[in-house]
């Protein structure tokens, strides 16, 4: 398994500077979350790491390899609904394998196990429109895990879910991650989600996007959902909220 290192990434769209001199690393197997107000460039940063987009300057490395073009070591879990409506759950999950020219026959059993792991055993023949939002994101996760990536890039994967499903998916993700250990870069704008999941939380400021803070989360794993109700958890969330407030005050607006 390999980690991610982002060095001095700068990116503008037209006249708008979106990311300025962003640098951070996520060690191999580390779970890093990135929080920041919307529009601060989180999605853009993640797309650059994945190689879907190119930075104007700076570089991204997975392990030692310099990323240029869609990175084979990464798998991206998108923010929006990103399943092919014409594919069943099983066929959606194998799309990444298909495109990466992995032999489906030899990996078929593993794919089935993965669908079990993400809680979709028995739903292989369903079409996306027959699934709830939570289940669709499970399929997205299975599709990403199926290509056995070193790095999982997750862009607000639970943002569209209701609060309860969201909490379920957070514990599920940690359970799956403990089974399929990956380097994870996970974007969210929910602070409790960021803290609950992460080994480290990066706080992004905006206009242009910079890394404003880098906080190590001290809680041991496995983590129960009840952790969110403890005082230490609340204090850490408070502290990060303070940073973000400062960032927003400096850069104006939400």
């Amino acid at each position: 398994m390999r980690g991610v290192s982002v060095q001095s990434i700068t990116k503008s769209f037209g006249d708008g500077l979106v990311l300025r001199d962003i640098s951070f690393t996520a060690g191999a197997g580390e779970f890093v979350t990135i929080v920041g107000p919307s529009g601060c460039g989180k999605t853009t940063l993640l797309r650059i790491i994945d190689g879907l987009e190119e930075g104007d300057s700076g570089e991204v490395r997975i392990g030692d390899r310099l990323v240029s073009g869609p990175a084979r070591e990464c798998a991206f879990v998108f923010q929006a609904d990103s399943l092919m409506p014409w594919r069943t759950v099983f066929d959606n999950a194998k799309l990444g394998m298909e495109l990466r020219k992995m032999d489906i026959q030899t990996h078929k059993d593993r794919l089935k196990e993965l669908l079990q792991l993400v809680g979709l055993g028995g739903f292989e023949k369903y079409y996306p429109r027959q699934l709830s939002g939570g289940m669709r994101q499970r399929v997205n996760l299975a599709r990403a895990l199926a290509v056995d990536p070193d790095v999982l890039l997750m862009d607000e994967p639970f943002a569209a879910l209701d609060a309860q499903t969201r909490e379920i998916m957070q514990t599920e993700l940690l359970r799956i991650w403990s089974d399929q250990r990956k380097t994870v870069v996970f974007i969210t704008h929910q602070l409790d989600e960021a803290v609950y999941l992460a080994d480290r939380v990066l706080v992004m400021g905006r206009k242009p996007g910079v890394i404003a803070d880098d906080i190590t989360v001290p809680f041991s794993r496995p983590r129960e959902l009840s952790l969110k109700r403890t005082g230490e958890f609340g204090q850490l969330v408070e502290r990060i909220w303070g940073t973000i407030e400062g960032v927003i005050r400096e850069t104006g607006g939400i």
Partner: protein
Amino acid sequence: MTVPSQSSSHVEPAPGVVIGKLPARKPSNGRGMHRKSSITISTLSIVVGIALWQIIGQFLVGNSLFLATPWQTLSGIRDMWTSGGLREDLLVSGEEFIFGFLIGSAAGIAVGAVIAKNRVSKRILTPYISGFYATPIIALAPILILWFGLGIWSKVVVVISLVIFPQIINTEAGIRTTEETLRDVARSYGGSTIEVFRKVELWWSLPYILAGLRLGVGRALIGVVVGELFGARAGLGFAINNAQSEFNMPELFAGVAIFAVSGIVFTYLLTVLERVLAPWAANRP
């Protein structure tokens, strides 16, 4: 045009539970339940329509020079069949329809795909496409007959010219409206431009293409009749024209009825095709 929709009922697994079995509800295409009753209603509607036609023809109009009844129309079909002309006419019109429809649809899909993917070709072709789509091409039929002669190929060209433009427009719209995130998914897993086209854009466009085919069926039938009216040696439209000049209403109505039935049959076959090819797309028109 149809837009693929994604809404449906939901099933959510309980927290942390691995679901091993399908729930009682089978994966359905969401329309299966009502299929039977909708066919019954359609059949009933046709029966009532024919009955009304018979009643109006027999009691209200009462003159077969103005309106042939269904019964007279049926005997018209029988006469045409026994005199030997109908078989030949059906074959000729059928060929014109099939060739025109298939070539026009295939070319429409191809051109639609090209202009969707290539900006320059779109700029070059769009004025012609919108121009020809908006003009009643049928008015050009006499010229096409003049150019391509009295045989089937002039009619095939008329049909192509009617079928191709809606299909170009639909296919282009399908590819153009493809959800960008889905393209990104394919790209992020290393999909090439061709793979993005084959595995995402083409599938996304399928309901649009199928809707274009359905539009095409009606327009192709019109093309066959009108083409033959302007000049032919055989065919159903030709027969209708003859019947009309001889004031043979039963045979005229017979010709028209055969076209109407073909329209119903081909449209139905296409909805079957949609069910087979795109069971995942809900809410079609």
